């Protein structure tokens, strides 16, 4: 087979760049929501109230035991059907097709939240107890203790895990192409199918994802140095 064709990489550069931007938007939003879910999940898992603890454990365990791709497909269908059922119940007939972007963000955030729960829980547990007791002894309110002590003390422990989750998330966005939303990898698949230059376009996809992950690794390394300021220099450095 000859890979020579009328269309080449340059003709697709625009759509591919657009797809890469969409991928980044999905990833950033899903990460932010996942972080919130993770904070809520971690607080629930550490809560003294057993039913709340059980609920959070069930969420993080079930999501982490089932393959991401399966979850994405399942939640994609479940999400649109649940919304349709909801609107039908409210007296609005008809099918609801949810926007692909919203689904993508929602599903990835839901999965991300489960992993984030575990990362944050571990990081919070690693805070020396005395620091929290000191905050209590000084009469800190729960909120002040949370954002003045817990968050800064937890970040150095949590950041390596959080950076890993971000890298996993960027790579997981490619799974969204399976439900047919046109992010980066879906665009690449269309380009490859239309030009028949499969090798070229999938290699290009690899390069783009690699650029994203390598840049992220460098940025997270800087961030980690920042949150570790004031900590004794570790032996690993």
């Amino acid at each position, binding site marked *: 087979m000859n890979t020579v064709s009328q269309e080449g990489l340059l003709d697709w550069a625009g759509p591919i760049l657009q797809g890469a931007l969409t991928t980044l938007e999905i990833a950033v939003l899903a990460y932010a929501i996942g972080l919130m879910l993770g904070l809520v999940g971690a607080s629930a898992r550490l809560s003294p109230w057993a039913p709340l603890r059980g609920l959070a454990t069930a969420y993080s365990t079930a999501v982490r035991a089932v393959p991401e791709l399966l979850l994405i497909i*399942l939640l994609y269908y479940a999400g649109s059907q649940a919304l349709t059922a909801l609107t039908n119940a409210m007296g609005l007939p008809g099918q609801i097709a949810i926007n692909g972007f919203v689904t993508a963000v929602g599903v990835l955030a839901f999965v991300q939240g489960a992993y984030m729960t575990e990362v944050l829980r571990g990081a919070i547990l690693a805070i020396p107890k005395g620091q929290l007791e000191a905050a209590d002894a000084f009469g800190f309110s729960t909120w002040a203790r949370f954002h003045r002590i817990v968050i800064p003390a937890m970040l150095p422990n949590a950041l390596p895990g959080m950076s*890993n989750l971000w*890298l996993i998330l960027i790579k997981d966005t490619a799974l969204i192409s399976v439900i047919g939303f046109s992010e980066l*990898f879906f665009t690449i*698949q269309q380009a490859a199918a239309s030009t028949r230059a499969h090798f070229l376009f999938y290699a290009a996809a*690899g390069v783009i994802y*690699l650029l994203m992950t390598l840049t992220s690794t460098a940025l997270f390394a800087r961030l980690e140095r920042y949150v570790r300021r004031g900590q004794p220099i570790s032996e690993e450095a």
Partner: protein
Amino acid sequence: MDFSWLADPFYQAYLLEGFVNTLWLVAVSAVGGLILAVAVALARLKGPRPLAWLAHGFTTVIRGTPLLVQLFFFYYGVGRLLEGIPGVQDSLIWPILRDPFFYGALTFILSVGAYSGEVLRGALLSVPPGEREAGRAFGMSPFQVFFRLWLPRAIQLCLPTLTGEMILLLKSVPLVSTIALMDLLQAANIIRDETFLVYEPLMLIAGIYLAMTMVLTVVLRQVERHFPGTQPTRHRWLPIRGQARTPKVPDTPHHR
């Protein structure tokens, strides 16, 4: 919930084939991938410089790109190129090169090799150098030192992380449904298309995966328990990729 389709022997056959293929893929990729991982780790630590760079580049690329992209790259990209080489279609290996299972296994082997190779490299670095020197002092060849001392000690240190990688491998198998390989998800897709039932097949597969993850966790924990010299570590089940860090072993002081 309508599970009446479960009684259909055709669908049972699909599900069974998907289940068997999933297990095969995990087994082949785990064995091949771990062998590759040892090679990659060794190349990065002791290989001549070009080989070390090559191994480093390999792990960076594999770990920095989505598995789905790699799968498409090998199946559609490399597969189509191979197809175009004259004579390949008549050769004896063509049945293998045409089979999506080959590309699935290839992709997963490379993936396990890169991720576990990195884990193993860290573990090899954590083995106190004094132990290797002791091996040399006893007259072991470098080859013996590696396979009898250094590697087993490193595996002791990173076994929970390695078993975690195996669970992550199991969870990436549904990706092969995108290259038309009959795994459990592909079986569910066929059932969904034919019966117009969306949830039930997917829920069943999710349940099967939940059970498989649990069984694999229990089995791997037994492996950990019976690996000579490992202390029973309390670690979480369900790993997060890259989360578990190899324990740092304090260097034994050099006596001169």
